[in-house]
């Protein structure tokens, strides 16, 4: 498949560039793990509602939420950041002259960041075990499906961010702002049942809500397979709609930049 070939080629280039700097990977592990240690202490204070059973229940809840968000972040913000880097470095125009569909470029821009964040997430997950993280009867197919569908959904968000870079030279800041809102209303750090009613309604517009619900049920709650079906179907619906829409938006943005002659400006 040409899209996979291009994604892997760009990811390889980004990996080679990343290792030429050396310290990025290690600092990513440290930053992510350190953030979770803070929540281990916070969890000692949170012993109400669904977290009343043990002093680590809230910690486990936040580990799943934060690590999953850290995996998705490169798909969304990483795409626009990479597009902006290409723009500022001067490689964007040449990339745009390559014999590939522009959506493939959009997807390739987040590939290395995504792979790196997944590796970091696994390492950090292992590091959290000694300080209290546990999973129970993990439903591996559901976890895999949630991760794949979520990556597709957030890659689509990333493509829109890259489209903003093409048109207004900014994208990461806007996508990061949108993600911070999505993170709060989708239950990354606390259950959405704690939100006011109107915000709970808003949370159901966010794909991350369904992803986190399915993921926590599949890793922490020992739920039967049928309990995931609705969440997975909604997530698949988001993916099926958003990816082609984002491809169209990115292509239009490239055409706008071509008309304005701004692919080589920043």
């Amino acid at each position: 498949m040409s899209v996979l070939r291009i994604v892997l080629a760009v990811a390889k280039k980004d990996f080679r560039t990343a290792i030429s700097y050396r310290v990025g990977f290690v600092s990513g592990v440290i930053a992510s793990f350190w953030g979770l240690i803070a929540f281990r202490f916070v969890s000692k204070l949170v012993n109400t509602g669904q977290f009343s059973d043990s002093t680590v229940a809230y910690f486990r809840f936040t580990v799943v939420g934060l690590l999953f968000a850290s995996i998705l972040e490169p798909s969304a913000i990483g795409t626009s950041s990479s597009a902006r880097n290409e723009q500022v470095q001067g490689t964007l125009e040449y990339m745009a002259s390559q014999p590939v569909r522009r959506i493939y470029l959009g997807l390739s821009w987040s590939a290395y960041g995504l792979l790196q964040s997944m590796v970091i997430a696994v390492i950090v997950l292992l590091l959290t075990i000694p300080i209290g993280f546990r999973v129970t009867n993990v439903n591996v197919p559901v976890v895999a499906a949630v991760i794949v569908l979520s990556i597709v959904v957030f890659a689509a968000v990333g493509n829109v961010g890259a489209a903003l870079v093409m048109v207004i030279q900014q994208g990461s800041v806007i996508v990061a702002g949108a993600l911070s809102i999505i993170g709060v209303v989708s239950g990354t750090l606390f259950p959405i049942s704690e939100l006011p009613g109107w915000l709970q309604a808003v949370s159901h517009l966010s794909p991350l809500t369904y992803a986190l619900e399915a993921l926590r049920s599949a890793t922490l709650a020992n739920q039967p397979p049928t309990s995931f079906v609705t969440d997975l179907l909604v997530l698949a619906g988001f993916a099926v709609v958003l990816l082609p829409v984002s491809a169209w938006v990115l292509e239009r943005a490239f055409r706008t930049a071509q008309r304005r002659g701004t692919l080589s400006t920043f």
Partner: protein
Amino acid sequence: MIPHHRRSRRRGQSRGAVGGIEVRGVGKSLRGRQILHDVDLAVPRGTVAVIEGDNGAGKTTLVRILATVVSPDTGSALVNGYDVVSQGLSVRRSIGVSFANERSLYWRINAYQNLELFGQIAGLNKKVIAVRSAALLDELHLLHVAEGQVQRMSTGQRQRLMVARALLTDPSVLLLDEPFRGLDEDGVQTLINLVAKRVQAGTTILIVAPLIVAVLPVADATYRIDAGTVRPVTAGQLGEYHPEQP
């Protein structure tokens, strides 16, 4: 006006039947300034056309239009028979391009890795990329610096690497924007030899540069661009041509 063709090469080969470059009435304004005015240009398949022009005359914008990274406001442009606006992907599959921008390379990886990246993006298999990369780097005298990061190369070496990258897919149309920038005398001669070899093999080549005297021996047609208007000129008029002259 009829372009000045210096000579006929490759007897028996159909020239301009299909392919090559055809520009008809192209105009382009950028940021409120008219860059190109009603440009006509025909570069038959398997020939070399060179366009000379001062800084800001519109040379690079014309190359960008042909490379599909800038769209024309008016007129049409065909590359290898494909329209640059409605058939951009097909155009990009036909061309190799070297922009006048050494920052279009990835500076923290080496020359082989740059060529590998763009070869894979273009769909070449690893073996073909390896063979062509080695041959091009050898032909352009870059083998001795090919394993160091691009940022450690000189400007002239990066310039030659951009040409190697443009040739990696063995394109039928080659667009070279200021390819002599930063080159020493040997570098210029190496590039001219390469152009001669490629055009003998049937590649259509468009070269734009502020001064094109060096490339005249291999040029089939010569043009001058002034204030966005392209005019065919004879070799003797280059460098001293002014639009107001009769």
